[in-house]
């Protein structure tokens, strides 16, 4: 197996003309051919200006934070910090996993339903396996609930991935199907009602703030995002993800096990949705079967605001996190400023379209610059 992977690496490295990969598109991901084909000097270490241009959405986030902070002193309060981070939690986890999928050329519409199902499952296991709020072993009930929920999330991802790669059906259709299935199962398990008879450990975990400023679920989400970002940037797995999304045919010709890789990314997406579900459920102390579809749309929007291309091959975990924070800061900042609710949707929509427009102009300029030497 290891030998096979090495051959794959060599096959990719030996390609005389590699497809335009992440590095050439300015996302900082090293091309598999880098070892043998030295890149032009300007690609070796991006200049500070290039880094800023690549990460311009951080400036947008900073401007938003500044505006809201100047408009209302409440925005910089500890309680608002906790509110922003806790609210961004589920969108961020879904968004970073969705970004990995989008980069590879896939998409997962079942994430919000898996999120709902995992929250209900954790509550269901705690209630029916251990006695719910009156459980004799509440800690065990909590751990078991979390484990089962995340495992089922991974299983749904596995089903998504296997069906997609074996049937060659569009992932949009397959994951739409699992969205419905998971919603139905969550409603069957919960009787269509929110499940709130939980051991107190659920809420204790979900509402524990380290040093008063770092909610434990947010810390867990941050660790997940950092691990995924490192995996995407520094590992062969991450490089292959970009290569597959950039050109599936080239990846196949290069000897990559594309199908197996794609199944793995769908499992990642399902696991992330399961993790987000249990973290959200423990924070709210509520296993809610009805998926909030806006969470899924916000997750995809965050990935796109972060520069992910829906045609694959391009995106960044770090910028997606910033995209998710922009959406959350807009939502909460506009509430604090007492802007009417529907303007919040308008604001997110405008930011989404403007971000994509600016990003596309930047890409076009970058391509022209490369073509013109």
């Amino acid at each position, binding site marked *: 197996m290891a030998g096979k992977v090495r051959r794959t690496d060599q096959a990719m490295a030996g390609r005389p003309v590699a497809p335009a990969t992440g590095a050439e598109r300015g996302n900082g991901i090293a091309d598999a051919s880098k070892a043998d084909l030295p890149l032009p000097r300007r690609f070796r270490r991006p200049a500070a200006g290039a880094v800023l241009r690549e990460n311009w959405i951080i*400036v947008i986030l900073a*401007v*938003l934070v500044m*505006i809201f902070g100047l*408009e*209302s*002193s*409440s*925005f910089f*309060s500890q*309680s*608002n910090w*906790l*509110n922003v981070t*806790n*609210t961004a939690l*589920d969108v961020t986890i879904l968004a970073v996993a969705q970004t990995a999928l989008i980069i590879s050329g896939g998409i997962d519409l079942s994430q919000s339903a898996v999120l709902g199902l995992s929250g209900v499952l954790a509550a269901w296991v705690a209630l029916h396996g251990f006695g719910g709020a009156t459980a004799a072993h509440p800690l065990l009930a909590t751990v078991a609930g979390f484990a089962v929920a995340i495992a089922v999330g991974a299983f749904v991802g596995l089903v998504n991935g296997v069906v997609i790669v074996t049937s060659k059906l569009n992932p949009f259709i397959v994951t739409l199907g699992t969205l419905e299935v998971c919603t139905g199962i969550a*409603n069957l398990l919960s009787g*269509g*009602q*929110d499940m*709130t*008879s939980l051991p107190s450990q659920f*809420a204790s975990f979900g*509402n524990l703030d380290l040093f008063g400023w770092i909610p434990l679920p947010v810390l867990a989400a941050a660790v997940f995002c950092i691990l995924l970002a490192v995996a995407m940037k520094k590992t062969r797995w991450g490089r292959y993800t970009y290569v597959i999304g950039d050109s599936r045919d080239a990846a196949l010709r290069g000897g990559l096990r594309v199908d197996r890789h794609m199944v793995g990314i769908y499992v990642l997406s399902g696991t992330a949705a399961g993790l987000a579900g249990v973290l*959200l459920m423990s924070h*709210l*102390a*509520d296993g*809610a*079967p*009805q998926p*909030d579809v*806006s*969470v899924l749309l916000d997750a995809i929007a965050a990935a796109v605001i972060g520069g992910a291309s829906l045609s694959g091959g391009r995106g960044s975990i770090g910028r997606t996190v910033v995209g998710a924070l922009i959406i*959350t800061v807009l*939502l*909460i900042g*506009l*509430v*604090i*400023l*007492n*802007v*009417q*609710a*529907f*303007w*919040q*949707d308008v604001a997110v929509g405008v930011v989404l379209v*403007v971000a994509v427009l600016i990003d596309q102009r930047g890409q076009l300029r970058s391509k022209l610059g490369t073509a013109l030497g």
Partner: protein
Amino acid sequence: MAVSRQGQRTVQKAMVLAGAVALAAAINACSSSASSSSSSPSSSSDSAASSAKGVPTVAFVPGIAKIPFYDTLSAGIAQEAKALGWNYYTQGSSSAFSVSAQTPIVAAVCSKHPTFLLIAPTDPNAMRSPIQQCMSEGVKVILVDTTLTDTSGIIATVSSNNTLGGQLAAQYVAKELGGHGVVSVQTGSPEAETQAARREGFVGWLTSHDTGITFLQPIYAGSESQAETDTSATLTATPNVGAIFNTTSTCQGPSQAIQSHGGHKPILVCYDDSPAVTTLLEQGKVGATVLQDPRAEGVTAVKYADDEWTGKSSVIPKSTVVTPVLITASTVNSPVAKQDLYLP
């Protein structure tokens, strides 16, 4: 060429700066207009300052933003707050009636420290924690429409008598059907607390009065389109359905399905009101609807807030139930009914 690129960058920077200024101006304009649309005599700046000056601020968080029921409830709050010279604003989720959508809004509103928070909790248990957090920051809380299982620390709860609403619908159906027939009950999810009470009131009254009415399996329909589909399916499977009672504000969907169905048309009884429902009542396509009097809920809640503010907390009843009314196709245009209809 180099000069040209630099020029482009300068223009870009200028555009970003202009965009930021425009965004700030737009936010200012939006927040100002939101303020002026409520009864607030002051700007939308943090209310803690205004509270310190002796003018209380009331904030209202509905289950979901901008539906006629909550708009009418909000109008009742605004009306009473204006009469008292208090500040008032409302913020609700535009996306969903859910704990996850309502929780961050409650936290954001409470970070501004209003004097009173009036809230319709989206879940009787899960919303306790964010409301508790709000109370721990010194905000006084009154529950409107829906309630919590644990109401400790809450000043008062004001809600509609949902069981009575179901009973009113049952009495109307029994009379229209002559005491016998098949009835379908449609309900939604996850608004368990209120809708379960309406369904139980409806079924309980018809069962306890020994009518010859029988019930189909309850239908769960969370949207107009789903309710339309489910109603069509019900009529296909059981053409002799005598009446359909929908415990949610979903009414156009079932009405459309009934009108599209050939042959026998069952009586449709809905809950709540909207301009569309009023029109359907006037056209006779809906037999009756139960109105909850949300304006009275809002007015009552602010009266209790005033009692608390003026040190008369001992006179505040812990729980207040507002009586619903039933409006039929034949009474919808009466002057009394006009007063009970919700705001468009």
